[in-house]
């Protein structure tokens, strides 16, 4: 298994380079280093000298990908792309355009992101699986029918609606929890109730339907028919046999997102005032801060790859027939 993991990690390098190249290309198609400098220095009283100075200090005065003026390997290494990317592979994210250390920011913002994402993930998993099992249990009855209708309805509503609606009902009308904000330590708890509830509800439709499909598929298999033929109660069939065998597709979906929980949510964090990484990314995009955008995309890709590797490993844990070679 170790060989497999090492091989997968090595495969990740070209993937990360590719992602980095695409991010770089997309970013600089839309923004030039001059645009970035103007965005940071402001509109009023910005002189061309100030722009040149800003670019020079941050290494944005070099050619983007290929330097005609240089010789040999320097044609590629004395470029913005190489200089910015090479450091990142050593996990040196450098400074944001406003001068703040990106690694420091990522470290301090990871916890708030996780504070929402982890409860939403765990609670969501329990709730969605429970509802999906209930629907599977009552398949072809009114419970199943209206359950599916409810799921489709929940899927059809924008997550923004849940956020605004939830804030309106729970915080504004009923005064039960704060509308937005974040606290340190245990004080954060009251701020997390609403985003967690909304996070779970907004994901309920799609996830419950998906898990229901998985369970129904399992329930049509021979071993389930055998179990029922033995006279086992349906609850035993469902919880002991179907649920266990449905774990592989569930794990595929669940484990892959675990590392991504650190990255937070782009919309929810902005609306609930959570100082997490999702909010950080949105700010960076708005302020054309390439250093932060690049770091966040890199981190996202890396975590995704880690998620995929973890998924593969988890297969071996739940299904003894699978061996990683």
């Amino acid at each position, binding site marked *: 298994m170790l060989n497999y993991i090492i091989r997968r990690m090595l495969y990740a390098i070209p993937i990360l380079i590719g992602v980095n190249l695409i991010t770089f290309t997309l970013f600089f198609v839309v923004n030039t280093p001059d645009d970035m400098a103007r965005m940071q220095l*402001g509109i009023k009283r910005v002189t061309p000298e100030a722009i040149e*100075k800003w670019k020079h200090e941050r290494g944005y005065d070099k050619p983007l990908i290929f330097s005609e003026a240089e010789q040999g390997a320097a044609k590629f290494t004395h470029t913005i792309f190489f200089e910015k990317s090479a450091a990142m592979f050593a996990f040196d994210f450098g400074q944001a355009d406003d001068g703040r250390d990106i690694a420091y920011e990522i470290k301090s913002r990871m916890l708030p992101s996780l504070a929402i994402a982890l409860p939403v993930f765990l609670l969501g998993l329990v709730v969605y699986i429970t509802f999906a099992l209930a629907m599977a249990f009552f398949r072809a009855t009114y419970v199943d029918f209206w359950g599916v209708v409810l799921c489709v309805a929940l899927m059809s509503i924008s997550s923004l609606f849940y956020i605004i609606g939830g804030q309106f009902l729970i915080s504004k009308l009923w005064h039960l*929890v*704060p509308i937005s904000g974040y606290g340190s330590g245990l004080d954060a708890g009251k701020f997390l109730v609403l985003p967690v509830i909304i996070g779970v509800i907004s994901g309920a439709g799609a996830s419950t339907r998906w898990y229901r499909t998985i369970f129904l598929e399992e329930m049509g298999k021979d*071993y389930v028919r055998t179990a029922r033929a033995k*006279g086992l*109660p349906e609850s035993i069939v469902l919880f002991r046999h179907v649920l266990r065998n449905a774990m592989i597709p569930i794990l595929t979906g669940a484990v892959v997102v675990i590392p991504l929980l650190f990255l937070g949510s782009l919309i929810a964090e902005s609306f609930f005032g959570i100082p997490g990484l999702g909010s950080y990314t949105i700010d960076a995009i708005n302020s054309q801060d390439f250093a932060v955008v690049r770091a966040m995309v890199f981190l996202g890709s890396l975590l995704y790859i880690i998620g995929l590797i973890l998924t593969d490993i988890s297969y071996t844990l739940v299904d003894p027939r699978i061996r990683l070679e």
Partner: protein
Amino acid sequence: MKALLKYLLASLVVLLSACSDNPWNSPYPAADAGKNTLYSAFSERPKHLDPVQSYSSNEILLTAQIYEPPLQYHYLKRPYTLIPATTAKMPVAQYFDKNGANLPDGADIAQIAYTIYEISIKPGIRYQPHPAFAKNEQGEFLYHDLTTEDLTKVYKLADFPHTGTRELTAEDYVFEIKRLAHPRLHSPILGLMSDYIVGLKEYSATLKTAAEAQVGQEGSDAYLDLNSYSLEGAQVVDTHTYRIKIKGKYPQFMYWLAMPFFAPIPWEAERFYTQQGLAKKNITLDWYPVGTGPYMLTENDPNRVMILERNPNFHGETYPSEGMQRDEKAGLLVDAGKPLPFIDRVIFSRDKESIPRWNKFLQGYYDASGIGSDSFDQAVQLTGQGEATVTEAMKAQGIRLEKEVATSTYYMGFNMLDPVVGGPSQSARKLRQAISIAVDYEEYVSIFANGRGIPAQGPIAPGISGHRDGKEGINPVVYDWLNERPQRKPIAVAKALLAEAGYPNGMDAKTGAPLVLYFDVTARGADDKSSLDWIRKQFQKINIQLVVRSTDYNRFQDKIRKGNAQIFEWGWNADYPDPENFLILLSGAERKVDNDGQNAANYNNPEYNHLFEQMKNMEDSLERRQIIDHMVKILRQDAPWLWGYHPKDYGLYHAWYGNVKPNKLSNNNIKYFRIDGSLREQKRREWNEPVLWPVALGLMVLVASLVPAVIAYRRRERGTGTRHTLPAAQEPGAGNA
């Protein structure tokens, strides 16, 4: 299990009892209830808090409370008046000729070679407590030679256990002026000030060379000791006096002395923050200011909250005892002569979205709020006389509305380099005039700004010298004075002008082709479609087809810089209350295309340019006002802009928020505000009683829906057959995929 239940119940009781004093939806700790704290919000995190770099309004909101430039604006007086902040008296300009001979006040500008401002600061002013000043018993700085080990447990400034202070000296002001030219800082006013402060340009070059030499020897972050390099234009006279030497005459310089760019910075702070390792922990002068002002920044988490607390070393400033006539009636002089500041703590919470911000204001968790277009109808209504006031619902909450015309202007510019709409020809001028009449800004303000604006008659905003109200202030090209108010000329006049311009009925008289013009805007969402449609319709009134060219902001700026736009929208906020700050926007020397200046329309009228040069360095006088009138007249005739409108800022304030008088130029106003914490607490509780019945109802619905499901489950289970199951290990198929 029982123990667990007991524990859970006990926790719930503790939790509920803890919540009982504080509304459940309060975003603040219960311990803060009733305290003398101002609660505010910010949506965009500040980029710079170093006064030499900071220029955005969201940054100055913080820096203006912490740093004290030598001058400030009087809080209550209008027109805006400069008064001493840390100076003992207002500095007086002394003029000198090229031989160094002192010239009288009214001397000819051509004779004035340089001006000297001698500034004397009040003795006894002390800095806020800060580790940069901390010394040991031997008088050595505790934190000026930090090692990596010293920093292992330091994550924020407050982690340094010792602080110190010292008296403010003239040297600190000179040090900050030198910092304008610091090669590792980006001061937005370096270019401008290099044209005025004697030797600043050369000083900048000297520092650059010194820094480059230093990089080779000590690394790129080494401390560059500015005190080792002298600047001719800023000299210390004695401990409490310094001189600034300005090229020629520049009366507007006094206004700059009221901005944080000229606030003092102690060399110790620069020395402290330049140490290795601190920047990695985001402990920099750009993030942890060191000032003498009424407040100091005690918590700096721009992602969540910024907290200002009363500076224990603040010198004794008092609330103004004179103001305008209506100020007394408004109760703004009740606190006259009392020591400032009134508020102990200011908490700025980050709320990026307008909906949560607005709702928290209504719940009493923010003390003041602006009014977004979404909430305008909920907040404001018009009286029979057309006066804006708060709605009944707001009134019932004790919320009041404060209005002030901003010292800003939003305009639509013509690119004067464009062959169709630009240039000095009669044809192009009449075309621009026709469009100026056709685009009805009264309607625009009414529809798109909810009435929050005044259609502009020229470039100068109200409240600024040179702006004229009433009949003499109207733009005769666009308006007639009828029934004691300006009346936009009929569209027939615009059509006639268009015909005279060579486009009768919107058709080119020479080619017979319809006149098509292009409006360059930054890419906008669906929300702005209606305003763009409205603008198209305005041009359509005189049969001009308007094509909207939407692009992203970067490309838009690029088009403006290169002169590729034809018609565009832009705006300007005044830096200081002088007409020069508006009229410069149309000065030929400031053309965007040739000079990368502020004149986005690239307007270049030699007569106007000459008058501008004459006017800009004059003191406010009748003669100057006459020149300004003449300049404005030229502009109105040439119509390089559709003058657009001057926005009105509306602010909502809760009943417990006192001493509020909107002041668009001064930013250090928090020290004047007053908060009634107990009233706020009472209202918060009243407005935020938790409503529990929906929770109970929800639980009942859940239980009710579960009952038939449980019954069905049990029935199905009974129908399955035996309830005795085999152990899992014995069951065939268990674990099979």
